[in-house]
């Protein structure tokens, strides 16, 4: 009986089959191919180069490539700064909205606003606003008399980095805010009231009662974000395209340039594996956190 | 209408066995209650009968036909769920008619049957509402209506009253009883509430850890519990159960107190036997405040110190103490008692039970 059952594919397997097939065809197989090509000096212009196996030469070159590691470090820095800022601002925004006595619906709707902006639009929008000549920001600063110069937001490397952070944070804070707000709304009121009666200050109530409950929701947001952190590519591509003079080059823009502008596919694929590895690391980490936080909540409430 | 028969029915989840080969014959039109503490396997058993859980071993017959591997729809059963499981997107009318619609019946045939069932359950005015607009008791009645509409061979109830408050529960208990008298079909009713089981069932099945402890009519399981477990489970407040040893024709308790060995056990147990002595609160009462069962010689008198009383109006539960052991008694025609008061109590030993301390099985006197 048991043996017979094992021979037949199970229902959940059949249900998952289409998903597995599509993902294998469009993601896994091409990735294997790119994994192979990362061991070749493949250039799009020279198809034969695909069969010239060079071992770890591409990886070796990357390891000693200052330009690559600068971009890598900048990417990690951008993600760290942006994700932390998004988390904190999202939490703040969610709490502001939760406390609002009137117009909750309208506020929540506005809160979702940036979510529907394509990253490419976000990039364009901030490129427009940060434009040194006609941008809203410089215009405003000049009209208010705070400066009489045109601040080169997207031309100076450091300023451009922060301009990108601002765009990124603007576009993704709402995911955090929405999910954390959902957590705040789902939270039972009794524990908070009990904490207040027990003499907790508002900060203690938040720290020991509210935050542990809301944490899994923040992790859901983190996980979703980590699923497509590389969306930032679109924003950067439009705002600076890694420039000026590679001063805002991120991993993804570097890969794209190496592959298409320089046509060095093999090398670009090797670089891409670093980017993929980075993304997977982020996601697995937050999935773990999410699972842990869920069990903790389950035990406490 | 059909019999249901469970033959060595087993449920396993991987290596874990939940139901250990139980046997049960349910007669046609019989009302059977499965009771037991949570985790005893009663709901799993019901779900196997329903076809919602695969059967790991043994046979299940409904109406003489083996249905082990048939899906629920092929068993002609209906079930009332603890959560009622009403379809939230359908009106009461659609909920009740759903099974008939699935069976391919035409809507003009469905309508009279739904209305008939609605009349029986006094739901006619609610037919066009959605489940979310109903109270708990109404939802419960709709769930029953959905079950009777299709005229099944067997009704299955999975703790149908446990989400209701005490008053409604009593009321709906009566309705279920009336319903059974009216539709006259086989019922298997799972509950953890022994009062429900006692009041509703023709026979009660008491389950524990995946085994059947006893099957019997309410009178049987109350008066002649087959084991210490059944004795403690059935009856409220539960039977006084005290570990003891037999010596010199007396029952000697752990704290040194003793009672005469009830006469009907005189020739049955030998000295030195380790037993558990059981006496229902009904058979332990302050002198002059109880009914004894006739045999004066079997009534033993002793003084107990009252610790707590629970007045219930027509009677009072008296928690009293002797030698560190607590006994629960029942006082009819009660008068007010003070805590700390010492009273003469009657132990009606003709009603006492003895259980083997090792096996927990009853020693028949």
């Amino acid at each position: 009986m048991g043996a017979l059952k094992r021979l037949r594919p199970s229902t959940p397997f059949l249900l998952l089959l289409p998903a597995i097939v599509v993902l294998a065809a469009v993601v896994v197989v091409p990735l294997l191919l790119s994994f192979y090509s990362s061991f070749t000096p493949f250039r799009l212009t020279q198809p034969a180069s695909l069969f010239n196996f060079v071992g770890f030469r591409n990886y070796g070159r990357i390891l000693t490539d200052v330009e690559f590691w600068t971009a890598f470090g900048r990417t990690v820095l951008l993600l760290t700064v942006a994700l932390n800022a998004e988390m904190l601002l999202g939490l703040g925004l969610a709490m502001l909205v939760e406390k609002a006595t009137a117009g909750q619906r309208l506020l929540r709707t506005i809160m979702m606003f940036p979510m529907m902006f394509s990253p490419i639009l976000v990039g364009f929008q901030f490129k427009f606003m940060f434009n040194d000549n006609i941008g809203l920001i410089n215009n405003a600063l000049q009209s208010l008399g705070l400066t009489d110069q045109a601040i080169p937001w997207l031309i100076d490397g450091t300023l451009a980095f922060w301009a990108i952070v601002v765009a990124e944070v603007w576009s993704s804070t709402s995911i955090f805010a929405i999910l954390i707000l959902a957590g705040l709304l789902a939270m039972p009121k009794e524990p908070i009231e009990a904490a207040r009666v027990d003499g907790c200050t508002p900060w203690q109530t938040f720290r020991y009662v509210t935050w542990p409950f809301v944490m899994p929701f923040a992790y859901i947001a983190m996980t979703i974000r980590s699923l497509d952190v590389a969306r930032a590519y679109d924003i950067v591509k439009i705002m600076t395209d890694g420039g000026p003079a590679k001063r805002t080059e991120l991993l993804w823009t570097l890969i794209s340039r190496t592959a298409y502008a320089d046509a060095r596919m093999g090398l670009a694929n090797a670089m891409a594996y670093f980017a993929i590895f980075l993304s997977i690391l982020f996601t697995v980490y937050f999935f773990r956190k999410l699972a842990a936080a869920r069990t903790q909540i389950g035990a406490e409430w | 209408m059909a019999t249901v028969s469970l033959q060595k029915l087993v449920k396993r989840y991987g290596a874990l066995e939940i139901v250990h080969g139980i046997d049960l014959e349910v007669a046609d039109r019989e009302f059977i209650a499965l009771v037991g503490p949570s985790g005893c396997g009663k709901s799993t058993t019901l779900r196997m009968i329903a076809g919602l859980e695969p059967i790991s071993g043994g046979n299940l017959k409904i109406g003489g036909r083996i249905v082990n591997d048939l899906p629920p729809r092929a068993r002609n059963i209906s079930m009332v769920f603890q959560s009622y499981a009403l379809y939230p997107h359908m009106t009461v009318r659609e909920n009740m008619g759903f099974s008939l619609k699935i069976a391919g019946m035409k809507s003009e045939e469905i309508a009279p049957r739904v209305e008939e069932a609605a009349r029986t359950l006094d739901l006619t005015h609610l037919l066009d509402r959605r489940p979310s607009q109903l109270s708990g008791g109404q939802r419960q009645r709709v769930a029953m209506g959905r079950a009777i509409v299709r005229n099944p061979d067997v009704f299955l109830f999975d703790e149908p009253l446990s989400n209701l408050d005490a008053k409604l529960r009593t009321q709906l208990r009566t309705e279920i009883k009336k319903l059974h008298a009216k539709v006259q079909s086989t019922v298997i009713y799972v509950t953890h509430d022994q009062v429900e089981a006692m009041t509703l069932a023709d026979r009660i099945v008491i389950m524990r850890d995946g085994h059947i402890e006893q099957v019997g009519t309410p009178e049987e399981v109350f008066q002649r519990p087959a084991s210490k477990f059944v004795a403690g489970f059935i009856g409220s407040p539960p039977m006084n159960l005290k570990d003891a040893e037999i010596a010199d024709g007396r029952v000697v308790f752990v704290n040194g107190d003793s009672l005469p060995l009830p006469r009907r056990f005189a020739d049955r147990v030998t000295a030195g036997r380790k037993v558990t002595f059981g006496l229902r609160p009904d058979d332990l009462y302050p002198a002059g405040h109880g009914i004894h069962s006739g045999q004066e010689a079997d009534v033993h008198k002793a003084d107990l110190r009252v610790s707590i009383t629970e007045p219930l109006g027509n009677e009072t539960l008296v928690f009293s103490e002797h030698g560190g052991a607590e006994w629960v008694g029942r006082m009819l025609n009660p008068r007010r008692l003070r805590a700390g008061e010492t009273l003469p109590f009657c132990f009606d030993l003709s009603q006492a039970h003895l259980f083997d301390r090792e096996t927990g099985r009853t020693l028949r006197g």
Partner: protein
Amino acid sequence: MNENAKARLAGNLLSLAHKLGLFIAMAIICLPGLWIVLASFRPTVEIMAKPPVWIPQDLSLDAYVAMFSGVGQGGIPVIDYFSNSLIVSITSTVISLAIGMAGGYAFARFRFRAKSSIFLGLMLTRTVPGIALSLPLFFVYSKLGIIDTHFGLILAYVALNVPFTIWLIDGFFRQVPKDLAEAAQIDGCTRWQAFWQVEFPLAGPGIASAGIFAFLTSWNEFALASQLTRSINSKTLPVGLLDYTAEFTIDWRGMCALAVVMIIPALVLTFIVQKHLVSGLTSGAVKG
């Protein structure tokens, strides 16, 4: 001043600070979008004016007229881009929903071996950065000759959307009590019937919002589209946006107008689903 008056004053100040904070936050969220909408109605001279013109003097629909007036007259093939976007987004959404429903149902209703690892594995395919995926896809697609076709883009977007769709739909099916499907089976349904008669209608709104989410992802996607499309055969709106950028100049007004065209469908759809979206993502966060 007694204790009560102090506490009351502190409370009032706090409430004022709260209102102010809320106002500033909402302003920051809304301003960039509104600025673009405004700019799309203004003449280029006014956008470029130095010193800036704060109060719009001259609002017109010129940018939109120019955009739709076709190639060569300052316009771009926006109709083509729009219809490409629509075709690709809708088709890929429908397919991802079908696949996602099957997968989500499997995760919500069945217990099987290595369930959480499989789930994580599916999600991980989503983490592959679009640009990293576009390199091999570009190569494979060129070999297969499906570059610059609707089919190629649809296939890529289905793969992009399936993991997240499964996550969302899993959540929605979990919210439908298991009892209901069981009750339906007792009522005589097969498992298949029970699904379509009971579970599907109840999870329906949630599934619709998962669909809209998938639609938005496809609608807004750029990294893959920019490599896998070439011409008006398959170029979508986000790629088309780049038509307004030349080597050194940008037609700000035109870009703003196209941005508005892009954002309107997204705006409408998001508002429709906002409630379900959140509940799908978070179901199970509390109950596990």
